[in-house]
């Protein structure tokens, strides 16, 4: 935990300091919205491998990390990108080719697991997944779980509700807490102390940040000291939950950042073809990521198209219908 009052550092410093080989990580966002893509690209750039990722529905960030060979294990609920990829493309190929190990949960269960981590408890209960293969089939077998003490000792546990007035009581499923080594989220605004404000839906980002041992916030804008205290109800993370703040305009590109810019439809349509072929994907990584920094990447991948995706201040997205 960084308790200093100026946490602003560069992207390469933040990733280099907190994301190391074999780390367990989680990233914020949901499918094509507010993934911390610049940070994802920096992980790829720094060639950090053998990462374990926890995700509910991280589309694009998850897929690029997998495609670039950074991920060895994934605990997920959903790997899709809406209309652009019913199933994330690299994820699909790497699953079939056994290049990643996958453990499946439901969206609620992953959300509860992050919340358990945030709350500091070892598990939370739910009725979800009783009678399904999500309970029965384990991606990480008991032996692996025994050896690797960073994994939860069991995928999930069915127990009887001890408060039930019937015997036998109803059953509940306990899902184990997640405490990632690092969580990276992309927010619209943060200040130098780490106080963070997201606009629009926050998904699971708040619990993911609280659950992690270290949290990196990349943001569109750094607020002046005290500025965020004008409306505390809109700030989701207190300073003491955040270890590093990185100023990164367009840090979620090509995914959307509500109120700032939209997802880039052209990029996603292009990515679909690239991702379907590993050699094309490798060239993409080499040319677009490894030989650029963040602003060069934006320039190369979007260029003047950036004006097309800027958000309309009224709606928070780039108005398709107005542009016709």
């Amino acid at each position, binding site marked *: 935990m960084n308790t200093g009052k100026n946490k602003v550092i560069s992207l390469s410093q933040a990733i280099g300091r907190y994301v190391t080989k074999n780390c367990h990580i989680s990233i914020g966002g949901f499918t094509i919205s507010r993934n911390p893509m610049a940070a994802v690209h920096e992980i790829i750039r720094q060639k950090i491998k053998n990462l374990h990722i926890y995700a509910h529905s991280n589309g694009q960030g998850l897929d690029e990390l997998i495609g670039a060979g950074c991920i060895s294990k994934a605990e997920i609920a959903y790997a899709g990108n809406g209309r652009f990829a019913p199933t994330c493309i690299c994820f699909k190929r790497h699953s079939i080719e056994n290049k990643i190990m996958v453990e499946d949960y439901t969206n609620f269960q992953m959300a509860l697991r992050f919340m358990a981590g945030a709350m500091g408890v070892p598990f939370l209960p739910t009725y979800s*997944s009783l009678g399904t293969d999500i309970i029965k089939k384990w991606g990480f077998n008991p032996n692996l779980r025994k050896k690797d003490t960073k994994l939860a000792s069991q995928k999930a546990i069915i127990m009887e509700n001890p408060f039930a007035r019937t015997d036998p009581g109803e059953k509940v499923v306990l899902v184990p807490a997640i405490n990632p080594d690092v969580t990276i989220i992309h927010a619209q605004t943060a200040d130098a102390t780490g106080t963070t404000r997201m606009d629009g839906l926050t998904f699971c980002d708040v619990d993911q940040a609280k659950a992690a041992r270290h949290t990196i916030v990349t943001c569109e804008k750094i607020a002046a000291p005290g500025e965020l205290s004008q409306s505390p109800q809109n700030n989701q993370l207190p300073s003491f939950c955040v270890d590093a703040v990185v100023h990164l305009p367009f840090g979620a590109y090509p995914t959307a950042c509500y109120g700032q810019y939209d997802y880039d439809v052209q990029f996603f349509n292009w990515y679909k073809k690239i991702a379907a072929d590993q050699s094309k994907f490798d060239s993409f990584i080499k040319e677009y990521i490894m030989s650029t920094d963040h602003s060069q990447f934006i320039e190369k991948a979007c260029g003047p198209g950036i004006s097309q995706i800027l958000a309309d201040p009224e709606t928070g997205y780039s108005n398709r219908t107005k542009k016709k």
Partner: protein
Amino acid sequence: MNYSPREIMVLAAARQIKNKDIVLCGTGLSMLAAVAAKHIYAPESTIFFESGAIDSGLAELPLAVADSRVMYKAANFCSLVETFSFMQNKKTGTNIVGIIGAAQIDPYGNLNSTMIGSYDHTKVRFAGSGGACDLSCFVGSNIIFMEVTKQKFVKKLSYLTSPGWIQDDTSRDQSKIAAKGPSIVVTDMGIMGFDKKSKKMFLKEYYPGINPEDIQKKVGFDIDISRAVPLSEPKNGELKILREKTDPEKLILD
């Protein structure tokens, strides 16, 4: 007025929605059905996106549940835990109706949206449960929304992601799942229900111009078509609203 299989499918699902319903939907056709219901049949129903937006303005059609378009002029934003808690909570859960799709369905309405093969040797991989399993466990009488093909309607699933009626009329009880199983499968050829006793899928209604026996041929298991009745054509007014108000840019209907 001509109509496409997608259009009649969307309208058939939309007709299931009542004014009191809170409709949990994904994007694509299932969202169109929810939006059409609001415009045509159930103006007081509430659309709730799994990503956490309630009663969104929907000035433009979103292309993913987390699209910024679901955030504009919503009544509420929820975290993921809050969203699914509304389903698990019986007070609100009883009024929620999910519209869910999947890669595969079996005769009891169980769904696979995870993978084909064995779990440690995946042959085909799909996106995973997302919220489908949660919805299927928490909410009674969901609407399942799928196109009929032999690959999709199968005897046995490789992976049971979301519980339907499992394998008979008592198995949800035995698995201690509180909510009821699915009520209906809306397809591009007709509507299937589940037999009260056996909980097996049967053909309830088929769309105009469709031969029930053709449905049987495209379903990978025996399905009772003896009780099936024809569904009348969509009305021009319904089609007009669907086309002009729910997807004027033809992003999904085409």
